[in-house]
């Protein structure tokens, strides 16, 4: 269980998160949503311990995150950020092997090799094992990094905009893989996602931030409503529910809204 208590974060005097207290349910997929500058990534980086909160505390399994050693923490929480440019010459398999570093400190044993194979197989990347990371497409590269994070075998996975710059197919592949990690392996996944439709269709839980504060949070069925999304993004939403899931349409305002704007 990840619990945040009265988290406050400011950069150079500018408040980014203000008094945020939330709990992330275990074995579920939680999406952090909200407009740009809402503090989503900052919140995720605080949980990942890549940033330090100005005040407040983060509890991982009931223990203050700041009290874990770096090596110990990496066996509990795995983080994936974006990798815009990657100039290292590594094969996919070598990259995934880094995921075992928290466990083996670089000397791979039989179990490590097995976990690497499992992670590569889990994402169906077997045919790319020997491919160099810098020669892969953006989508494949993101899958490779995800495989590394999976091989880390942590209870908690944090992903910062894992769908950025991906085509729909890769985005769906990644979200389905994350869904399976929750359902089949009982991992807790928290991710920042911009596309409300991906958040609505694949998450169990949604946490919406706005201006550095929690706007709403709860199970998807409860919180994905027209009024809440409209208030969060300042757009006119139409939410269509079908057997295959939600579609949140926000592309063009409704006639009513258009008249309202003109009038």
């Amino acid at each position, binding site marked *: 269980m990840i619990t945040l208590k009265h988290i406050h974060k400011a950069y150079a005097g500018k408040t980014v998160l203000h008094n945020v207290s939330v709990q992330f349910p275990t074995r579920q997929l939680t999406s952090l949503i909200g407009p740009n500058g809402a503090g989503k990534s900052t919140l995720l980086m605080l949980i990942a311990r890549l940033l330090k909160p100005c005040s407040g505390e983060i509890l991982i399994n009931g223990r203050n995150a700041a009290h874990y050693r770096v090596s110990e923490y990496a066996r509990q929480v795995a983080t994936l950020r974006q990798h815009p440019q990657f100039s290292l*010459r590594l094969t996919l398999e070598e990259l995934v092997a*880094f995921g075992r570093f928290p466990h083996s400190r670089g000397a791979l044993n039989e179990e490590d090799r097995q976990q690497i194979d499992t992670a590569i197989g889990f994402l169906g990347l077997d045919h790319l094992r020997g491919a160099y990371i810098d020669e892969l497409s953006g989508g494949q590269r993101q899958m490779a990094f995800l495989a590394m994070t999976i091989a880390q075998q942590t209870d908690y996975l944090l992903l910062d905009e894992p769908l950025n710059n991906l085509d729909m197919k890769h985005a769906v592949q990644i979200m389905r893989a994350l869904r399976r990690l929750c359902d089949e392996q009982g991992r807790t996944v928290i991710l920042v996602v911009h596309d409300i439709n991906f958040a609505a269709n694949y998450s169990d839980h949604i946490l919406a931030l706005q201006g550095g504060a929690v706007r709403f949070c709860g199970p998807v069925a409860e919180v994905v409503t027209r009024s809440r999304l409209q208030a969060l993004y300042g757009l006119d939403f139409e939410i269509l529910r079908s057997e295959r899931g939600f579609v949140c349409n926000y592309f063009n305002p409704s006639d009513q809204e258009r008249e309202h704007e003109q009038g």
Partner: protein
Amino acid sequence: MNSAIIRHAIWPLLIALALAFVLVGSGLDLAYVIPRRLLRLAAMVLGGVCVAWSSIAFQSITGNRILTPAIMGYEALYLLLQALLILTLGSASLALLGHHGNVLLSMLCMLGYSWALHRWLLGNGKNNLYFLLLFGLVLTLVLTTFTQFIQLRISPGEFSVLQGFAYTSFNRADGQQLLYSGALVLGVGVVGFKTLPSLDVLALGRDQALSLGVDYPRYVRLYLALIAILVAVSTSLLGPTAFMGIFVANITYALARSSRHRLTLPLGCAIAISLFIVAQFLVEQVFNYKTTVGILVNLVCGAYFLALMIRSRGDA
């Protein structure tokens, strides 16, 4: 070319080069010529290890393939220190500090410089290559200008002493200095080898390294300290090597076709040592001391590096 073949072929090649350097034209004179050459060979081996190791490790930490300790002002600082010593103490400083005192002082200076770099530039992991490059170039320029300014104020005799520091040469080290330099490099090597897997992870960048359980600030500090020792050893042993680090590192990446330090560091050392031997051999046997190692190294490396870039069209 197959990188595995290169990795294995380089060692016999290196031994052959070393033997040729020691034996060719020596008349098998065991009393003077060969011992002198062995001393120079030892200086080249130590220097090569220092240059290759410090450049590759520095590039991994800063996440780029252009910056080396030499570009970030380490060597300019060394020269400034020498100039300051001569200005304040005169050439008597050489006698006062002794050669070994000078080496020790340089080492302390560079450790301090590393600490400052870590404190203000490299500690936060947000390494903007262009900013670092600009900073390094400006700093080198400022330090060099200071050095030149000091040069104008000292006597011609002292100036020639100072100039001696500014060229790459294998003749200045005596056996004793080689011995403790070797011990230092060995010490760095032991620590470095123990933490080699961590260096691979550091190369992934601050966030990924932390996420994989590597205490980033601590290891960057450790590696910058190791690099400072290596640079201090190599500059006090051979003088500044300027751009050689970039060449060696990039040629290594191109030949190793891997970023794993287990492969790149030994290969880089072999390449650097081979280059030194070839250059020194040419200076001694072909050019009869009418050119310098520094010039030859830059010429050979530069040409080879350009050829490599053109042939592999950017994926060097």
